[in-house]
């Protein structure tokens, strides 16, 4: 399915991530998945949160730059070859994968992917 992801621009500075998690905590927002992309000077924090509108408003209020974007979330059995199967399909269809992150638990893996065409990707993966 297509879900909304919240991204936050972060300077590589001690305590910045803590500020973000603190703001989310104070607003009663749960983070269900998270990844950080980083360069030397800055990073992009990407999250799936329980209330994206409330979270983005709270962060903006504290002068963070935030962005809401569409990503796809897929659930697969936690066995060898499953990820490869999906990547192969997308790759052969010419769908560009910008980044992905995920986790597995109790035999199920959940993957969050930023792709060039979310709707088409889901269709190809027969997840729609």
């Amino acid at each position, binding site marked *: 399915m297509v879900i909304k992801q919240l991204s936050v621009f972060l300077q590589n500075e001690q305590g910045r991530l803590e500020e973000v998690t603190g703001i989310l905590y104070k607003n009663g927002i749960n983070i269900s998945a998270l990844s950080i992309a980083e360069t030397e000077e800055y990073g992009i924090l*990407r999250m799936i949160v329980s209330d994206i509108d409330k979270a983005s408003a709270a962060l903006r209020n504290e002068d963070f730059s935030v962005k809401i974007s569409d990503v796809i979330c897929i659930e697969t059995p936690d066995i060898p070859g499953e990820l490869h199967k999906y990547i192969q399909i997308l790759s052969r269809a010419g769908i560009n994968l910008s980044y992905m992150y995920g986790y597995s638990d109790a035999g199920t893996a959940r993957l969050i992917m930023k792709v060039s065409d979310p709707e088409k990707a889901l269709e190809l993966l027969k997840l729609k």
Partner: protein
Amino acid sequence: MIWNESMECMSRDQMHDLQSRRLRNMVERVYHNVEFYRKKMQALGLEPGDIKTIEDLVKLPFTTKQDLRDNYPFGLFAVPKSEIVRFHASSGTTGKPTVVAYSRKDINIFAEVVTRALCCSGVTRNDIVQVAFGYGLFTGGLGLHYGAEKLGAAVVPISGGNTAKQITLLQDFGSTVLVCTPSYAAYLAESIAEAGIDPQELPLRVGVFGAEPWSYEMKKKIEDGLKIKAYDIYGLSEIIGPGVSNNCDCQDGLHIAEDHFVPEIIDPITLNQLDPGVTGELVFTTITKEAMPLLRYRTRDLSSLDYSPCECGRTNVRMAKIFGRSDDMLIIRGVNVFPSQVESVLLEIPEAKPHYMLIVDRKGTMDTLEIQVEIDEKFFSDEMSQLNNIRNKIKDKVESVLGISVIISLVEHKTIKRSEGKAQRVIDRRKI
């Protein structure tokens, strides 16, 4: 009225001779009385006898604000402390204040040049002069006070601030001349309007403003707001204080009291003297001061000199209104960079906001220029490649304008300090 016609209207030849004579005496004095200058001259292989005319000024070493700090507090005095009758000091926003000292004669010179400046501004002994410059370590208050008294005007030594009282005294005493900073004059004009007072009803007719750079637009605004004629008074405590130069009625440059302070314009990079009319850094040599004479003091103010006779009758050289400071300029790998160039590039790039900071550093033998730019949230992306594209776009544009490679760092919104006054745009970490 011209206060001192013999000094302000003498021929250029006479001025040349007077300045040369005074310079010779001054160099003799500092060589023998100020160790700092003696060492500097000796390092250059100079003896006092090598300085014969003002053309020889170029042989002499420069003095900088840093030299004053290095010799804090009393290291540059050329007289015994018993000869000193007053101190002033700069605000010292960056570290220790710089101290200046005056002998009895210096105080008289100070009063003399301020009196000339006031006369230049059309002030007479019949005026009531409200001095709203701060009194204290700052040279403005006491400097204008002594000058106005010497002229025979009546001084209202109200000092700075206390706007309500300023307005009351303008009304009740009928002050005809206001002396303060241009920004305070603009504020007073607003306050007078807010109080519902018609400035036409006030006897105020002349404003003598200085101690900070101001534009022609600001001057016009103050003149309209207070219904007065505004004059520019220039000076710096290192040289003596306000009164180093002043506008005359022709309002075409500021006449320098050059029988006391010899001006030069230099290229701030090569340090070569520049021709009249060419803009560069203003440098002064004091040729009469006793307590703390300075050789070729670099003011960092950018101006140019005009030696042509003025319609007002004065022959004293005129300096152009100060429009900037040379220390805004950075030299990075031999290339001149002005923060304003970076600003104009950023204003053309929608993804960047015009809030930026230049950080100059030296890695090994290589100067580096990092430009921190705040990114506009509209263009923030969750994809690193997008952010890198924005960064490269800014980098390409800035580099094509500056002609040197730069490091662009995207920083969070509002992380660059906002300033209500003069914004700090540069951090130079080079240790040279």
